[in-house]
């Protein structure tokens, strides 16, 4: 039963990072049994706010009250002991530990006798917890480092739920998930709220939050723009509140027919990754956007890796008919054939976070920048980076800024710009808009449409159906490792028809 009485209150919270006013006088009230969405563009202060509530950082001024009592957590552990648990961007899993140890670390005493931990008992308990929350899709014998980003999030969520908190904070968790796992998390959220608990969901997926939440708070430039009832608003209204102006029409493609060139630029023949996907064959044409959709076990993300020749060794052929070397055997062959690949896991497999923007942008083009195949002029590198930053409107203090200091959206702009400023023939994008706000998303779609017009072929692997429907010429729906259906834009895409095939 949802009682609706106040569980957490924030009063005039302020947080500064140098001259940036990340949280500006934020006052909010969260009620029991409420699912509250917090949305805002990258850099609007959402994650800063959640990290203050979670005890990961302290507010410069302001007060918080939990159940009417002053609440000022010194650490995430302190927050947990006060009944506030979280799955946030900054935290993660401990890669060298198994899943049970990840779930129970800090609480391993219950399995300990004379200081010796009964790992078998812990493993069974971990399995029980994962199944209890409907998240038992992982093998508990695995090390966390061997898990996909999706399954890592499931482990983190189980850990957060296990302490039975009063308030659960989920910071951009669902965007890492495929549709089936997303549905599992939605169920967990609903069940949790039904127990008169509070869930705070921070997300960039406006459509999702309007459907999922009871109330939505919109932040802009560190300030609260407003809190609205989800039942009384629309995604477009929320987007307008976020960016401070009305959206100028649809940011997806508007034409109903597919358009593409005549030449095949990438041909995949009978590509098989045993146990993941079988006999995948297709051709990608110049100027075509070909989307791949599927559930978490469909193999769409692994397909992207296999085409780019990373990950486990696959069978079958990847051909680039227009390139000098026809058959692709390594990522270098793809790059030389004018191809590129963007991983779903941007921070781990995409960008060099410690390095500056300049280095990240220059690396894929270093061969072109090297004079006589060896010498690279720093001036050329700087120019290349500055051009990319200007073209892609990357918000940064300069090209020397480390990429780790950028917001998610600007990181993705750097990630995209370093490839799209090259003379590309095709690009494989795995979840290109994961973790970016609506403004950056709009920008990325615009960039992709421009790339398409230039004749660049695009493989778009996505967990977001509106994105595939909005942008693709063709959608290949995968089910359990095979292409179950190919739908053309001219046939008319609908979410229902795609989901029907996916499940």
């Amino acid at each position: 039963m949802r009682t609706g009485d106040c569980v957490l209150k924030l009063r005039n919270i302020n947080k500064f990072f140098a001259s940036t006013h990340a949280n500006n006088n934020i006052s909010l009230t969260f009620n029991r049994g409420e699912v509250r969405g917090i949305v805002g563009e990258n850099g609007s202060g959402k994650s800063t706010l959640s990290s203050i509530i979670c005890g990961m950082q302290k507010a410069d001024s302001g007060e918080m009250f939990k159940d009417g009592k002053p609440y000022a957590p010194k650490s995430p552990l302190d927050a947990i002991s006060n009944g506030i648990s979280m799955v946030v961007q900054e935290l993660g899993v401990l890669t060298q530990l198994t899943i049970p140890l990840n779930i129970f670390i800090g609480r391993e005493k219950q399995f300990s006798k004379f200081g010796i931990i009964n790992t078998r008992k812990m493993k069974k308990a971990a399995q029980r917890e994962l199944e209890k929350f409907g998240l038992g899709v992982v093998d508990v014998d695995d090390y966390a480092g061997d898990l996909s980003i999706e399954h890592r999030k499931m482990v983190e969520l189980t850990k957060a739920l296990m302490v039975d908190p009063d308030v659960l904070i989920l910071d951009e968790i669902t965007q890492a998930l495929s549709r089936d796992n997303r549905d599992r998390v939605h169920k967990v959220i609903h069940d949790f709220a039904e127990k008169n608990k509070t869930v705070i969901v921070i997300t960039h997926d406006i459509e999702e939050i309007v459907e999922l939440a009871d109330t939505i708070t919109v932040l802009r430039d560190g300030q609260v723009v407003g809190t609205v009832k989800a039942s009384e608003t629309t995604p477009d209204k929320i987007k307008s509140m976020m960016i401070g102006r009305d959206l100028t029409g649809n940011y997806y493609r508007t034409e109903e027919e597919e358009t593409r060139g005549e030449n095949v630029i990438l041909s995949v023949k009978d590509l098989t990754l045993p146990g993941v996907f079988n006999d995948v064959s297709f051709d990608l044409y110049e100027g075509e956007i070909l989307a791949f959709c599927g559930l978490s076990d469909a193999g769409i993300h692994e397909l992207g890796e296999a085409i780019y020749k990373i990950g486990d060794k696959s069978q079958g052929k990847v051909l680039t008919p227009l390139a000098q070397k026809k058959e692709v055997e390594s990522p270098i062959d793809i790059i030389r054939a004018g191809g590129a690949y963007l991983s779903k896991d941007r921070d781990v497999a995409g960008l060099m976070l410690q390095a500056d923007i300049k280095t990240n942008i220059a690396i894929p083009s270093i061969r072109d920048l090297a004079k006589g195949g060896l010498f690279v002029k720093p001036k050329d590198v700087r120019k290349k980076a500055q051009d990319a930053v200007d073209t892609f409107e990357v918000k940064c203090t300069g090209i020397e800024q480390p990429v780790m200091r950028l917001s998610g959206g600007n990181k993705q702009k750097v990630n995209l710009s370093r490839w799209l400023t090259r003379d590309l023939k095709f690009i494989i994008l795995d979840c290109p808009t994961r973790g970016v706000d609506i403004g950056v998303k709009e920008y990325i779609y615009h960039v992709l449409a421009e790339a398409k017009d230039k004749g660049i072929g695009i493989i778009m692997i996505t967990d977001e159906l509106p994105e595939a429907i909005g942008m693709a010429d063709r959608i290949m729906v995968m089910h359990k490792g095979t292409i179950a259906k190919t739908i053309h834009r001219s046939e008319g895409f609908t979410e229902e028809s795609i989901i029907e095939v996916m499940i």
Partner: protein
Amino acid sequence: MNTANPSAKMPPRLKRRLIGMAVFFAILCLIYVVINIMTDGKFLSAFNIKTIITHAVFSSILAFGMSFIFSAGIIDLSIGAKVLLASNVGLIFAYDFNLGYPGLLLGTILCCIILQLISAWLVVSLKIPSWIAGLGVALVLEATLAEYSTGRIKSGLTSVINMTDDMRLFGTTPVMFTMMIVCFIVAYILFNYTKIGINLRAIGSNASVAQAMGVNYKKSIFIGAIVGAIFIGIASVIQISYNTKLEAVTGLSSMSRMFNSLAAVLLAQSINRIFNNTIGILVSSVVLMSVFNALTMLGVPSGTWQTVVLGAIIVICGILANIGNKGVVK
């Protein structure tokens, strides 16, 4: 990523491990048999096997100790210097203070603990990168022992105390083997089944995440240093009891004392998909010593060429360990 299959009799990871172990030991046996044939049956003689295991005792116990320090991400290059200094301190306690075996054990182990705590403090409290701190500490400890040696020589004594036969109990084979087995069991339990090992591994994975999950960073590092130092101290006692003396060295030459153990730790990491870390250290130590032994028997000069082979083995193990891994770290 494998999904759980309740109908499966054996967990997939365990199955993979058992197959890996079977393949590993099959290849090892094959190589041993070939070497045995090449050495006219001398390599697998009882006497030679005993020699190999004897040589593996020091490196394996030292490696057990190192694993408690390295697993938290602390690369301490001063462990060899600590072995040299602490074992000589043990001898001072045993002979100069007339404390006998208790003095030898206590002096060596206590010295190791103090020195290891200093190293941990430099890293944890002063935030000095561990490898830099390690090099600095190694130079200081080497110089300290060298000064001590110079002082003794000036006094008309030998450069270091030479252990007499009546004190060499820890250098005799039955005791050494027993110590190795006991140390293995204790290290195995501490590393895998206690908060000590789990917290250290958590810190090694990601220190800030581990702290957010309730791991006390400083306390864990200091406890790891103490536990590691106890093993290093025991290894030092065995080493000096076996050798009767450990001379002072300078110019970071002390690092050679820890090189075999370091190689065992690295090898254990490279085969950690097959063997648990502690078991991996034991297996690696024995394998490395048998490699050196075989090379000596085959007439390969000790020193340069044997080191080249050791380096090659480490590289090959690293490659083998990564076969089948995904190209993209997820």
